[in-house]
C-alpha cells in the first residue's frame, strides 16, 4: 500500500542550522495494516508524515501509494489517496463553516469540484447518521459553525472527514496529543472503531507508548530519521513497555535517558 524507498531530507541545507531529518528512510506498509509510530522529539515522525502528504519534496528517494509514484505530486493532488488528522485540532476543520459544509468538502476529496450545489439537502441528512456514531450529540448541530466546537469535537469531526471518502491511507499525527486525557481516550476509541470498521490502512503517530502498544497490528519506532524497531503480529500482542525500551536500546545502540523522552511531549 505504502512504499517509501531511501527517502532523504535535510532542512536548511548549507547553513549552521542544517538538520538531517531523514537519511535513507525505508518503510513498506501492507494493505490493511494499522501501524503505530513512536519516537522521541526530532526522531523524524512528523517529517515522515509530511513527506507522505507532500508538504515539501524530498531531496532524494521515492514514495509510492497503492502502486502510484507520488514523490513529485503536489499536496492537493495526492490528497485523494490520504485521510489526514493533524495534531492541532484547529487545523483539520474550517472554523467559519458549518459542520455539514466541512463534511461536504471532505466528501468530494479527490474529485473535480464543479459549479453544482455543494451540499444538497439529501446529503446533509445523510451526515446525521455519520455524526451520530461519534456519540457527541453533533447529529443535531449540522448548521453549527465548527469554530464553536471544542477541540475534542473538532478532532472527531476531522476524523470523520478523513474517513468519509475511504482513503488508501489514513495518517494520524499525534491527533490526541492536544486533548485532555478523557477526551483523548474518547477520540482514540472513535479512531479505532472507524479504522476497524472501514478496514483502513493507517499510520498513527503517538507520544504515548501504551497507546502505541494497545492499538494496531504493527509498531515501529523511529530514531534519528530511520526505523530502529519494527514489531508485528503475535509479537506485538504480547509487547510491554519494558520490552519496547529494551528493543530500542538494541536497535538504536543508545540508551534511553529516561522514559520521559518517549512519554512526554
Amino acid at each position, binding site marked *: 500500500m505504502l512504499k517509501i524507498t531511501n527517502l532523504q531530507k535535510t532542512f536548511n541545507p548549507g547553513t549552521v542550522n542544517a538538520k538531517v531529518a531523514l537519511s535513507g528512510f525505508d518503510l513498506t506498509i501492507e494493505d490493511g495494516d494499522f501501524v503505530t509510530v513512536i519516537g522521541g522529539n526530532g526522531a523524524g515522525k512528523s517529517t515522515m508524515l509530511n513527506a507522505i*502528504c507532500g508538504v515539501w519534496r524530498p531531496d532524494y528517494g521515492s514514495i509510492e501509494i497503492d502502486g502510484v509514484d507520488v514523490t513529485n505530486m503536489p*499536496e*492537493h*493532488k495526492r*490528497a*485523494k489517496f*490520504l485521510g*489526514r488528522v*493533524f495534531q492541532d485540532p*484547529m*487545523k*483539520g*476543520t*474550517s*472554523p*467559519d*463553516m458549518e459542520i455539514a*459544509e*466541512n463534511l*461536504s*468538502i*471532505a466528501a*468530494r*476529496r*479527490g*474529485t473535480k*469540484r*464543479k*459549479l*453544482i*450545489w*455543494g*451540499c444538497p439537502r439529501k446529503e446533509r441528512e445523510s451526515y446525521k447518521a455519520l455524526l451520530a456514531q461519534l456519540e457527541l450529540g453533533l447529529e443535531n448541530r449540522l448548521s453549527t459553525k465548527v469554530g464553536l466546537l471544542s477541540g475534542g469535537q473538532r478532532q472527531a469531526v476531522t476524523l470523520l*472527514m*478523513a474517513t468519509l471518502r475511504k482513503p488508501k491511507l489514513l495518517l494520524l499525527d499525534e491527533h490526541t496529543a492536544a486533548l485532555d486525557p478523557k477526551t483523548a481516550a474518547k477520540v482514540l476509541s472513535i479512531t479505532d472503531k472507524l479504522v476497524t470498521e472501514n478496514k483502513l490502512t493507517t499510520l498513527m503517530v503517538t507520544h504515548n507508548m501504551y497507546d502505541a502498544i494497545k492499538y494496531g497490528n504493527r509498531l515501529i519506532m523511529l530514531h534519528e530519521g530511520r526505523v530502529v524497531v519494527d514489531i508485528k503480529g503475535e509479537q506485538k500482542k504480547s509487547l510491554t513497555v519494558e520490552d519496547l525500551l529494551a528493543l530500542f536500546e538494541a536497535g538504536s545502540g543508545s540508551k534511553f535517558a529516561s522514559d520521559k523522552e518517549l512519554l512526554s511531549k
Partner: protein
Amino acid sequence: MAFLNALPGAVAEGLIWGLMAIGVYISYKILDIADLTVDGSICTGGCVFAVLLAAGMPVWLSVLIAFLAGALAGVITGLLHTALGIPSILAGILTQLLLYSVNLAILGGRSLVAIDPRANRLLLHMSNNPMAVVTAGLIIVATIVVLWLFFYTEVGLTLKSTGDNPDMSRAQGVNVKFNKVLGLAISNGIVALAGSLLAQYKGSANINDGRGAIVIGLAAIFIGLSVSMKIKPNFVVSLTGVIGGGVVYYIIYNFVILLGLKTDYLKMLSAIIVTLFLAVPYLKGEYFTKQKSILPAPTGEEEAGGEEHA
C-alpha cells in the same frame, strides 16, 4: 436643506462604492488577503469602459469587458502571489503600480476621457439621481444573488475554506493556489464593474480615479459588518451590510463637505473614518470593558442551596 439635496447623489455614489466594497469583501474577508490591486483595477474598469464606449461599443458589452479586464488584473496579482511566491500584499502593490501605466495606455496617454451622457444611453448618470439609485440597486441585487448562489456550489465552498483554513483545504484535495487566483479574479472583476459604473455616473474616466479605493472599501466593510454581525452573521446579510456601509460612508462624506471641509482634505477624511472604525472596537475591548468577576454574584437561590448542604 443643502444636505437633503445632496442625499440622493450620496446614496447613488455610496451604492456604487458599496458594490466595489463587495469585491474587497471577497478578497479581504473570504480569502483573507488584503488585496491592494483594487486601487488600480477600479480605475481600469472606468478606463476600459470609457474608451470602448467612445469607440462605439454598446454600454452593456463595455461593462462586461470592463469586468473581465478587472478579473485579469486579479489573475495577475494571484499569479504573482501563488506562482512566484510574492507576499500577497506586495503582489497587490505591484499590480496596482503596473495598472497605472496600463490605464494610461488604455486612455491613450490622456489623463481623462469624457463620456457624453446625451450621446450615449448610460446605465446611470448623476443628472438623474433617483434613476441612478434604482439602477445601481438592481445591479447590486443581481451581484449579491449570483455570489450567494456561487458560494454554495462545490467550487464556492472550497473558496470559503481556502481563506478560512488552507491546511484543511489542501488536506481535502483543494487546489488552494488556484482558488486564490480565482477569488482575486472575481473580486477585482466586481471592483472594475463598480469602476465602470462610477465612470458613467461621473461622466468621465480619470487616471487618478480609485486612489484610496481600498480604504473606502474597507470603511464600507467595517461600517457594514459592525451592524450586520449584530443582526445575523450570514452571507447575504453581511453583503447587504457592506452596501449599507458604502452608503453611510458617502452620507458622512457629503455631510462633512457641506460643513465646509476643503476637498483637498477628503483623502485624509477617508483615512480618519477607517482608522476610527478599526480603532474603536479595539479600544473598547482594551480599555473600556469592565472585567467580569470570575465567580457569579451570589443569588438567593444559591445561598439557600448552600444552607442545604451545610
